[in-house]
């Protein structure tokens, strides 16, 4: 896109270079593995090598005899009040919540489930010790696939239940069956949204530090949700929440993998309690592949009743979600988010959705960038192309006839959401123009002349983000609210500290929040410091996930700035001996209307508020304000992505030759950061479309345990991209902002797969599953041409 000029410092809407960068480019970033506390020991977990087995004995003697090993703890010796807790209980779903002890008691249910913790002088010795822990297992039958797990006679993951049903969500509108029966024709499609692994470049890690004398515990952990972790430590470790401090150092990426509370976080606290010294655990990459949540893993069966124009008159989805062996923080809610977004950006009034969640002998699934919404978007966008194909229509036209129209907003969806604002035709038009959709036929002919297949694919997406109104989180059974906190503190010198409940891990909140302060309060960008991620310094914060930081946390900041500004106005009126109504805000000072010489800058007012010698009646000293902002609604960013591919018939390689994204995330604070989020999001979607798949063998073994088998895109794999935006402000908040962190990932996979299906459509190919690795595509071509 036309590059916006980048600047050092600035306000809302400017491409301001990040104030976070310097520490990272100089190596001064401080991630959890960079911290060392006095007397600290190191932990390594002994993990199950079986997908399902009974533990018949654990012998720790040899490990404990090894010089340098201090202790080996097992379920019997590691203190805990309870196991890991799940905060998600969708109403009416009959959700089951199996116990997930910190260390396995008598049964392991997935490869990688922790069984013992070895604590030693350094991590080499702890690893040596772990190799000497002898665990006797009796293997049990395994099931790893959600559909298979729900079939009669499947091996039971939890023998206390009669079957592997984890939860079932069902939603159907009145009159659905009649609408489907009356449709001119039906189109059916099965779509697999495969299991993937989040793979932040920094794995997880934490240090527990339990003070024996006071009972205070500090956990340094690589997380997106410090306050959740604190609350849950108080439950799991059986202590007062007021004695728990959670500190988030720099976090090397999260993507939802760190939106959780994990066994290891509790275990290092308890181990520190037992040993009396800090205990550090840093996850290995191959450990991360089994010990940290996975994403997706949903199988979908769509039936669309359509009229001759391609308009969907009724839509049915029967889906199977693989929850893994246990429920992590939000597992049952993730496919609930899929349910909400099944209709996408289309006006589909008659709908029936059944989401059957299953327990399997696999690592639990939970939020991964997009969390339930990519599954919905990928499915409906594949379905749109299937409908177009069935009717012989242009996929763009089928989308248009189904779009919710601009005049329908606010729009009540058949799944119970109220979409705030949107203009889907405009982003589609703009994307088709930028991608030269009209000129595609000529490009296809040119490719075919070179013996290559060429295709073009669309993804018109809408997502729900800005999580979330607290009344809604409660109504859908999430045991946590969705508001966010901010405090703005002006120091006597007029410099500002912002304390935010959001918890950035690459998103650049310090920069964006400083821009908001400069615009709204007139304190220069460089005079603002942003504090986050330490429960000792902030009131409760909900953290960073679900593209919520700006739409909820940023708006909380905006409201605190407004409060500070208004308080400053009262002080200014007192100093200038006028009424507040006589004052106008200049952007950085209050001045008597029409009299620039009678003004007080925000810095002067901060000093006066601190000195407090001349305060108006009833006004407290100091310019400081706090807001807990609970949004009235979600926000609904949207857009159109267009992908163009070439496929080499000899190798089966899908090459993306052009990628165009037109996104609408409402008003933008920093276009450079937004573009960065879109780039990264698209490449994660591309990873799922082309390369990534977390695979279990029949025996429950993890077949993709390292970055050698699990292919993450590299610089050599990324296509040229054209980015553009339209701006449809959200009416859900006074800033008109929406959110952009997940949009790219939500949109990309469908555009890429649709392009590849289009490329091979001449061979009679109607559908392709992800990941479209060369071998898979080569086989498809062979079958179609032989």
């Amino acid at each position, binding site marked *: 896109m036309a590059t916006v000029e980048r600047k050092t410092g600035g306000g809302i809407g400017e491409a301001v270079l990040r104030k976070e960068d310097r520490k990272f*480019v*100089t190596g001064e970033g401080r991630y959890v*593995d960079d911290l060392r506390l006095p007397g600290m020991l190191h932990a390594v977990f002994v993990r199950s090598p079986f997908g399902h087995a009974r533990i018949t004995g654990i012998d720790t003697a040899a490990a404990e005899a090894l010089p340098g090993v201090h202790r080996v703890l097992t379920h019997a010796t590691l203190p805990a009040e309870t196991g890991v807790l799940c905060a998600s209980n969708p109403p009416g779903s009959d959700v089951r919540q199996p116990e997930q002890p910190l260390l396995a008691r008598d049964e392991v249910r997935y490869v990688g489930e922790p069984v013992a913790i070895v604590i030693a002088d350094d991590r080499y010795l702890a690893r040596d010790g772990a190799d000497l822990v002898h665990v006797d297992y009796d293997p049990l039958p395994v099931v790893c696939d959600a559909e298979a797990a729900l079939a009669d006679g499947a091996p039971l993951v939890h023998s206390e239940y009669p079957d592997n049903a984890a939860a079932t969500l069902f939603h159907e509108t009145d009159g659905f069956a009649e609408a489907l029966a009356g449709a001119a024709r039906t189109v059916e499609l099965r779509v697999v949204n495969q299991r993937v692994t989040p793979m932040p*470049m920094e794995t997880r890690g934490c240090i527990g530090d339990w003070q024996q004398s006071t009972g205070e515990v500090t956990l340094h952990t690589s997380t997106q949700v410090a306050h959740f972790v604190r609350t849950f430590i108080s439950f799991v470790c059986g202590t007062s929440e007021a004695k728990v401090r959670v500190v988030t150092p*720099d976090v090397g990426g999260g993507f939802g993998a760190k939106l959780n509370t994990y066994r290891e976080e509790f275990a290092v606290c308890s181990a520190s309690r037992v040993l009396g010294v800090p205990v550090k655990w840093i996850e290995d990459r191959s450990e991360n592949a089994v010990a940290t949540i996975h994403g997706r893993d949903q199988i979908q069966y769509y039936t669309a009743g359509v009229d001759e124009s391609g308009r969907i008159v009724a839509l049915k989805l029967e889906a199977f979600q693989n929850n893994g062996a246990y429920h992590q923080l939000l597992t049952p809610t993730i496919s609930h988010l899929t349910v909400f977004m099944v209709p996408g950006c289309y006006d589909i009034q008659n709908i029936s959705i059944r989401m059957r969640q299953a327990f399997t002998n696999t690592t639990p699934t939970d939020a991964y960038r997009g969390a339930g919404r990519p599954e919905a978007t990928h499915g409906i966008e594949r379905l749109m192309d299937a409908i177009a194909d069935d009717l012989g229509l242009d996929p763009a036209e089928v989308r248009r006839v189904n779009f919710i129209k601009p005049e329908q907003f606010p729009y009540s969806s058949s799944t119970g959401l109220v979409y705030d604002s949107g203009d889907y035709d405009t982003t589609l038009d703009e994307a088709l123009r930028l991608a030269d959709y009209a000129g595609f036929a000529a490009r296809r002919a040119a490719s075919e002349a070179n013996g290559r297949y060429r295709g073009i694919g669309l993804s018109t997406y809408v997502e729900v983000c800005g999580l979330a109104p607290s009344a809604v989180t409660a109504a859908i059974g999430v045991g946590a609210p969705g508001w966010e906190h901010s405090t703005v503190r002006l120091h006597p010198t007029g410099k500002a500290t912002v304390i935010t409940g959001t918890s950035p891990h690459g998103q650049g909140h310090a920069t964006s929040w400083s821009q908001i302060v400069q615009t709204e309060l007139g304190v220069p960008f460089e005079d603002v410091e942003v504090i986050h991620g330490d429960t000792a310094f902030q009131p409760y914060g909900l953290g960073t996930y679900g593209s919520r930081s700006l739409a909820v946390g940023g708006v909380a900041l905006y409201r605190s700035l407004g409060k500070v500004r208004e308080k400053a106005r009262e002080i200014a009126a007192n100093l200038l001996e006028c009424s507040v109504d006589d004052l106008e805000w200049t952007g950085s000072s209050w001045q008597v209307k029409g009299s620039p010489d009678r003004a007080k800058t925000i810095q002067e007012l901060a000093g006066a508020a601190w000195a407090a010698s001349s305060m108006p009646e009833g006004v407290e000293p100091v310019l400081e304000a706090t807001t807990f902002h609970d949004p009235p609604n979600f926000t609904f960013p949207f857009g159109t992505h267009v992908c163009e591919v070439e496929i080499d018939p000899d190798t089966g390689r899908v090459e993306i030759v052009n990628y165009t994204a037109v996104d609408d995330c409402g008003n933008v604070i920093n276009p450079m950061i937004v*573009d960065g989020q879109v780039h990264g999001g698209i490449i994660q979607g591309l990873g799922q479309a082309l390369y990534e798949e977390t695979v279990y063998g029949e025996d429950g073994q993890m077949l993709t345990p390292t*970055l*050698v088998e699990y292919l993450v895109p590299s*610089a050599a794999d*990324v296509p040229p991209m054209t980015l553009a935006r339209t701006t449809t402000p959200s009416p859900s908040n006074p800033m008109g902002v929406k959110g952009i962190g997940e949009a790219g990932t939500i949109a990309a996979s469908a555009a890429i797969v649709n392009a590849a299906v289009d490329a091979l459509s001449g061979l009679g190919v109607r559908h392709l599953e992800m990941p479209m690795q060369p071998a898979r595509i080569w086989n498809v071509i062979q079958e179609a041409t032989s």
Partner: protein
Amino acid sequence: MGQTITVTVNGTAHTAEVDPRTLLVHFLREQLTLTGTHIGCDTSTCGCCTVHLDGEPVLSCSVLAVQADGCAVRTVEGLAEGGELHPIQQAFHENHGLQCGFCTPGMMMTGLGVIEQNPNAADEEIREALEGNLCRCTGYQNIVAAVRSAADQMARS
């Protein structure tokens, strides 16, 4: 038993006793507390740990500390001079070539290696050369732009 080695890191000679199995990356991070070099994998696939060993980019997770005996190592901490950012650091900043920053030190050391070997590398060559360095945040567009712009800047000066 420990073994005594001398390694010159960012211009300073360090003599230390190491366990022979100690990886160079752990020597740098744990013994010298130079934590700017990161660890992102255990299969030599991510590039987070890239440093220069006698002027060549290497994966410090794949080199034993004892193998670096007598060698010169350059890490991210040795890039800036006198508070002045190195052109590669400045370029990553100005091109928004980082988000969480975890891959960044390794990415810059590899990028610098490319520039030093081929100051006129085309974008395609830069992409190929960065293939062993994974970034999960940026989608690489701005990383490639940053390396390109650092190369131009260094050619000018």
